[in-house]
């Protein structure tokens, strides 16, 4: 049994941000996450730090929140952010009224937007279609959500917070208006234990309704799946937004060495199947090609999907039209005095969500402590050191250590970085870290081969180190390739189809892994 002041459920951006916020206020907390850091929507988005321009027409409140938070993060967590800048572009046939609304709304909401001549826009981003009719430069930026969350939890742990990976909440006991104890199960070992906390915060994103239901507090959610595509190479320097009401295939965000194409909005009845589909991928490519014709012949290495957690506040048919503002719910109204839910919101406003949640939790606990995340820079942690595309390779090249082999040749990840990340994971958990955990903390498995080669080299290294035994390696590789496959399957044509054939030729054709037990 463990005891703490605040128990946070969910290791996405909000949960990890909250852990840091509480830790900085001196409030002890435990964070439990059933899978891994950013395994849900926090890792399943395009990594956009909104300037506010996207919402300036339809949701001025969100727009203002975004603008203010983005400015804060740029100064407090610059290492997680690439100030790439953005363009909003319209192409022939796009709604003129929307363009006019956008132009007038930006100055009104204080969002910087600079009108560009089409020629200028094409000079800045030559891959844009020459059929542009309007272009505005804005202050959008790219943010690495994995780095952000790993750094947040990194500092929280340093300040005494406890982080439990792979711990799923299986039951919640309530007694006289209180959540009395929370049963968690280690999904790897199967062991269960209970945690007692003065305050419980449900920060499980799309799963908030499930957790609330366990506590007996009804919370109706609806789910909007957003699918994104990753290109093999970075296509643009800046974030490219389509200047029209939000719709499919209207944004391209650089992510280090690649570009990320977004997004779809598909209503899901439940969270059983959160997979990107081939239809969505094809749809997005054809929509996006109106802005960037090169998308038609671009090699995509994978697709992924996240679920937007939207509260059922009104009868809105399309998930996108619902408010993106976050919800902070005090379940005292449901008869539970020590239970809060924070959900919805955006990556850009994660810090604000954490701040407001911590404010409320502290107030309810009767603790007077000011928020410090608004003023204190986010320290770089070694946990998130190698998530950024291109960083590992630069470090490897400059260190020039002949003995430090590249285990991932696509993304140039050397052995030393793999060893470092796995060793740190070992200090955090009793179980042997796996390839999927490594992937979330490095670029391993993210390049063109999607893990076909590096999975073997890393596994070989783990046996050399004596960290794996028996058929653990086969199981890890199968699990890893399956996870990679869910993102491959929707985009398998052209070059990536040939790549997938090579993966199967190796792992099934030669090594017969399909015949090994899971």
């Amino acid at each position, binding site marked *: 049994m463990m005891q703490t002041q605040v128990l946070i459920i969910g290791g996405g951006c909000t949960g990890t941000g909250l852990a840091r916020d509480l830790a900085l206020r001196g409030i002890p907390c435990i964070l439990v996450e059933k899978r891994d850091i950013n395994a849900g929507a926090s890792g399943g988005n395009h990594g956009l730090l909104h300037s506010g321009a996207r919402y300036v027409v339809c949701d001025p409140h969100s727009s203002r929140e975004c603008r203010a938070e983005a400015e804060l993060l740029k100064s407090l967590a610059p290492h997680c952010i690439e100030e790439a800048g953005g363009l909003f572009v319209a192409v022939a046939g796009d709604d003129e009224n929307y363009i006019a609304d956008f132009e007038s709304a930006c100055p009104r909401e204080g969002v910087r937007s600079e009108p560009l001549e089409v020629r200028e826009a094409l000079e800045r981003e030559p891959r844009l279609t020459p059929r542009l009719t309007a272009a505005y430069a804005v202050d959008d930026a790219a943010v690495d959500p994995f780095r952000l969350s790993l750094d947040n939890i990194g500092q929280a742990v340093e300040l005494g917070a406890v982080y439990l990976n792979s711990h799923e909440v299986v039951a919640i006991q309530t007694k006289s208006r209180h959540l009395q104890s929370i049963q968690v199960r280690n999904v790897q070992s199967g062991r269960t234990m209970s945690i007692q906390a003065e305050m419980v915060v449900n920060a499980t994103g799309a799963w908030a309704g499930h957790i609330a239901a366990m506590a007996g507090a009804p919370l109706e959610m609806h789910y909007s799946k957003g699918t994104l595509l990753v290109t093999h190479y970075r296509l643009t320097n800046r974030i490219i937004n389509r200047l029209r009401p939000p719709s499919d295939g209207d944004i391209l965000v650089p992510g280090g060495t690649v570009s990320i194409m977004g997004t779809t909005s598909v209503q899901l009845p439940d969270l059983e199947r959160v*997979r990107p589909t*081939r239809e969505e*991928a*094809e749809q997005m*490519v054809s929509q996006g090609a109106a802005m960037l014709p090169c998308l*038609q*012949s671009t090699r995509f290495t994978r697709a992924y999907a996240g679920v937007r957690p939207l509260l059922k506040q009104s009868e809105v048919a399309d998930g996108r039209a619902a408010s993106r503002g976050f919800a902070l719910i005090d379940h005292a109204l449901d008869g539970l005095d020590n239970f809060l839910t924070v959900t919805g919101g955006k990556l850009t406003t994660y810090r604000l969500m954490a701040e407001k949640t911590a404010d409320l939790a502290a107030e309810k606990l009767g603790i007077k402590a000011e928020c410090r995340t608004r003023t204190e820079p986010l320290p770089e942690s070694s946990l998130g050191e190698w998530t950024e595309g291109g960083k590992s390779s630069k470090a490897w090249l400059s260190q020039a*250590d*002949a*003995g*430090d*082999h*590249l*285990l991932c040749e696509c993304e140039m990840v050397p*052995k030393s970085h793999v060893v470092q990340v796995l060793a740190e994971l070992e200090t955090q958990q009793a179980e042997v870290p796996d390839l999927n955990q490594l992937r979330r903390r490095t670029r391993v498995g993210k390049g063109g081969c999607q893990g076909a*080669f590096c999975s*073997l*080299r890393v*596994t*070989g*290294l783990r*046996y*050399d180190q*004596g960290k*794996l*035994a*028996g*058929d653990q*390696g*086969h199981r890890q590789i*199968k699990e890893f*390739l*399956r996870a*990679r*496959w*869910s993102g*491959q*399957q929707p985009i*398998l*044509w*052209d070059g990536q*189809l*040939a*790549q*997938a*054939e*090579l993966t*199967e*030729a*190796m792992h*099934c*054709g*030669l*090594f*017969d*892994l*399909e*015949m*090994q037990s*899971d």
Partner: protein
Amino acid sequence: MRFGSAFNETLMKTSIYDDRKYTLQTDLTIIGSGIAGLSAALFAVQEGLDILLLGDAGASNFASGLLDVLAAFPGKKIDHCSDPWQGMAVLPEHFPKHPYNRLQSDEIYQAVVQVMRALATADLGYNGFEKENVQVITGLGTCKQTYRVPESMWPGVKAFQDKSPCLLVDFHGLKDFSGPWLRSTLAREWPAIRTERVDFPETRGHSELFAVRLAQSLESERVRQKLAAAVAPLIRDEQFLAFPALLGLYSSGAIRAELEERLGVSIFEIPTMPPSVPGLRFLETMGGILNRYSCFRRESGKRVSHIQREETGQFALTLGEGEFSSRVLSRQVMLATGRFLGGGLQADPEQIREVVFDLPVVQPSPDQDWHQEDFFDPGGHQANRAGLEVDSVFRPLDTKGDVVYENLYAVGSILAHSDWMRMKCGAGVAIASAFKAVQSICTASNQEDRFSL
């Protein structure tokens, strides 16, 4: 996405080209130099046909060097078949359209044996059982079933069967191979295997080592001597010594024999991840054998940029482009261009196409998924069964089921209805289809000769 095949359907009036000579006239042009293309070339030159072999190894650069014939039936669950010939007997029932069903199993056996014999004349022996697949241990510690293994792996088959004491030696810096992985995975099954890691001779200061590079360096006697000296003190009572597959590239048989003599143990190789040395040996050795024949020509650097048929039905091929292009007149053309990785098939989001002639490709219908949701789905993926439909002698068919051209053939992995990765039938299908197609070409040209007499 771009798509343009090299083929122009309009018949070409022979006279147009009267003043522009062909660089070469040949009986058969084979496009593709993988296992299928090389085997077809071998069968053809053995029959005395003038042939031109085009293309580089393509996907075969990733070939393992193992010779699969048939070892599994994918489906709701995977059925193993330890005797490929027995498997073939029930194949028509389970996979009625599989390319093997166009041949007698006798013919398939003969074809495989013919290739093995040729390889043996060039110091690349293969070994196996008549009526049973071989169990070979891979670098991952999995036990793979295949029909024939290079002789360099054969002692390992025996050692694994008897679970004999064995020392496995691998190398610092060879990141593609881990002896401890194999040992630990097999610990329960084969406890008598032990591992040691040594420095590969003359590699100090090199950061990464690659199997192909090390294999080349073992062609030097000095390096072999040093390797033997490094390994000798590590051998205890083991009669078997294993290495990752890198014991020489061109004279592997002699190299292994020499090391065995120096060390007094039986030495075998373990298949590694690609690019694999035994795979390259196969390609190189086949190329060497073919070069012995005066009727054999090879052009690897140039792509087929244009193909048209003359009124006589012969194919006029343009190789390369611009001033370095050359023109070939060929009685027959054989596609051995492989699948997606090899470049014979190409896909855009809507459909799968054949690259050279834009032949109709049998493929999943628009409402069917190309791939299963589970990468390891025991049934395999639909896209891997897409390919060309052929007649009984491996001539591509059009959508109506008619032969497209009586002198155009297709062999190897481009054929439909054969998931080579899951059925473990890649080399077998390549060799058998090449065999049958060449046989048909010979029969046809014999008949022509009779008429001209």
